[in-house]
């Protein structure tokens, strides 16, 4: 029985392919693209002003509100600023760290370092963010106490606190791809560069950076997109500051169509970002 099934499968490659791909394609189309399409359609609906029920009639009111109200322009710019800062901070911290792990550390400590970079990912997101909340607490937090000896105060809750929290959360996602990229980089390229008289920084700029650029882009896609959609960190560390995710969170229970409209913004930003990344050719060499 099984034998005959195997034989018929072997003879009909199309059937084989279909059997293999049906489940993943269904998942991709129904759960993934389907959800995205529903989101897009919902963005054009509206709600009954009294009962809050969704009225399924096509109109552009949500988009009109989004583009005319300056508040939403501000929140988009603020969120972009935060996502870019987080990405830049993560890159600046990740490159030396990954370089040490890949090129300088002994094999034994290298494994330990990789494990150490991964361990924060085992703890719950909320625990980590609430820990930062306690540390950044104005006047009573440990950060305030540390900085107090220098005569400065803790930034308290707000934009800087969100950037600190998100940079901490997403740092491993930046370190790991760069580490992988640096591991593939042959040591003799660095030696050759040194032999030809290049300074360390020149070697970094002309040899290392171009070669690990695809890894950097891979890491930035994580840090950037994860920051762009975040609302929990903003809620806990942001004080009264809101990010795009907060707007969606705030509206989805009251005005689902408007929340859908707002959530088209990060989708669009990411689409543009991925398009630019593709133009650089970084995706092909990943």
């Amino acid at each position, binding site marked *: 029985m099984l034998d005959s099934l195997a034989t018929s499968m072997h003879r009909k490659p199309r059937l084989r392919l279909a059997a293999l791909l049906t489940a993943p394609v269904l998942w991709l189309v129904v759960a993934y693209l389907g959800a995205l399409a529903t989101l897009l359609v919902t963005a054009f609906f509206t709600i009954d*002003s009294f009962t809050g029920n969704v009225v399924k009639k096509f109109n552009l009111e949500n988009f009109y509100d989004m583009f005319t109200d300056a508040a939403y322009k501000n929140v988009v710019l603020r969120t972009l600023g935060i996502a870019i800062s987080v990405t830049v901070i993560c890159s600046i911290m990740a490159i030396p760290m990954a370089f040490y792990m890949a090129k300088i550390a002994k094999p034994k400590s290298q494994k330990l370092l990789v494990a150490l970079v991964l361990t924060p990912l085992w703890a719950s997101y909320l625990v980590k963010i609430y820990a930062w909340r306690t540390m950044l607490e104005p006047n009573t937090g440990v950060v305030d106490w540390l900085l107090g000896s220098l005569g400065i105060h803790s930034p308290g809750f707000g934009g800087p606190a969100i950037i600190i929290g998100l940079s901490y959360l997403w740092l491993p996602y930046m370190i790991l791809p760069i580490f992988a990229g640096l591991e593939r980089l042959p040591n003799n390229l660095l030696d050759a560069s040194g032999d030809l008289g290049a300074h360390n920084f020149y070697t970094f700029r002309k040899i290392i950076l171009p070669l690990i650029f695809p890894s950097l882009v891979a890491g930035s896609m994580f840090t950037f997109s994860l920051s762009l959609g975040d609302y929990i960190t903003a809620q806990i560390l942001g004080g009264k500051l809101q990010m795009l995710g907060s707007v969606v969170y705030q509206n989805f229970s009251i005005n689902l169509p408007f929340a859908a409209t707002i959530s088209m913004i990060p989708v669009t930003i990411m689409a543009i970002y991925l398009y630019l990344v593709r133009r650089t050719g970084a995706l092909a060499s990943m």
Partner: protein
Amino acid sequence: MQKKRLFSRIAVASVAALILAGCSSGSDSASEGGLPDIEMMQELGAGEGQVNVVAWAGYVENGSTDPAVDWVTGFEAETGCKVNVKNGTSSDDMVALMKTGEYDVVSASGDASLRLIYGGDVAPINTNLTPNYADVFENLKMQQWNSVDGVAYGVPHGRGANLLAYRTDIVKPAPTSWGSVFDADSPYKGTITAYDSAIYIADAALYLMATQPELGITYPYALDQAQFDAAIALLEVQKPLIGEYWGDYLKHVASLKSGGSVLGTTWQININLAKGEKTPVEGIKPIEGSTGWSDTWMVSSTAKNPNCAYMWINHIASPEANAGVAEWFGEAPSNAKSCALTADPNHCTTFHAADDAYWEDVYYWNTATEACLDGRTDVKCVPYSEWVKAWSSLRNS
């Protein structure tokens, strides 16, 4: 290539089919303006074994917060209905939860109840099946927010005022007016807090009602455009003073404790919880009066466990349970017989359960509609959906 094109065609076709399916289903939400016709339950049957409850934090306590605070375990043992509770963070949240159809019962405030009734999300209640309804204070029954055209939609739960919380060790002298949270030169700038919901616009309107009589506000949920703009302008003035807006009551209690928030609007239960953690904090009803709530237990129109739902509502309105909630949450009970059962014999006096004069300047949360709720017919009022937009805009600017 041929295959690739075939695949993308299939993908496009299935997405299109999905969208069409999404559009065609659920065209039953029509009920534009009218009252949906929903049958009330006629006879109580056997319990279904569970009941899913949407409630304000502190309304359904099974001893897990404080072992001494428990009016759920006994009910579960007696009826066999296991109580699954989901705490709502705001009225908007509760309305959204009830629209999912997964819950049987809700403790709705006045700014949610009418939306639920007209949205067809709750059913009229048969008060013959909830004998404890008879003991509810008469002036809580058949009010604007819990009945329509003489049909009751729920059993009153209790009422309270939103209070002004302040840290007694930091805020000196003690505040007496809401003005302290709207004062642009406040010494407590950066540590003032406010409730994070569009309904908070009414708090600004209430303050304007007392301080700027020329605006002509008589009811904080009936604001014409000029009055509404004035309230928003006041909230814009307040925004730089705010450290955090609060939606999550536990985070709010933590902020009161840490000193991140020292002054601002709160509920009595937050004061009680903060005091329980040795925080020096007090809550008062300021001289301008206050916004407040009068909650109603309602049954979902799509309840999967209607019998347990009715049993729960009858239980929570019983003198014992009602006294327990009222005392734990810090509110006035709805059942007149509760007053004899509270652990603190003065509870009903402290919370003015039967003191009608106290409630005269407490404006229970209500849903603003285009037809002004204060009876004016010469102007249109700003409906609640616009409140939500304005609040979202204020918070994100």
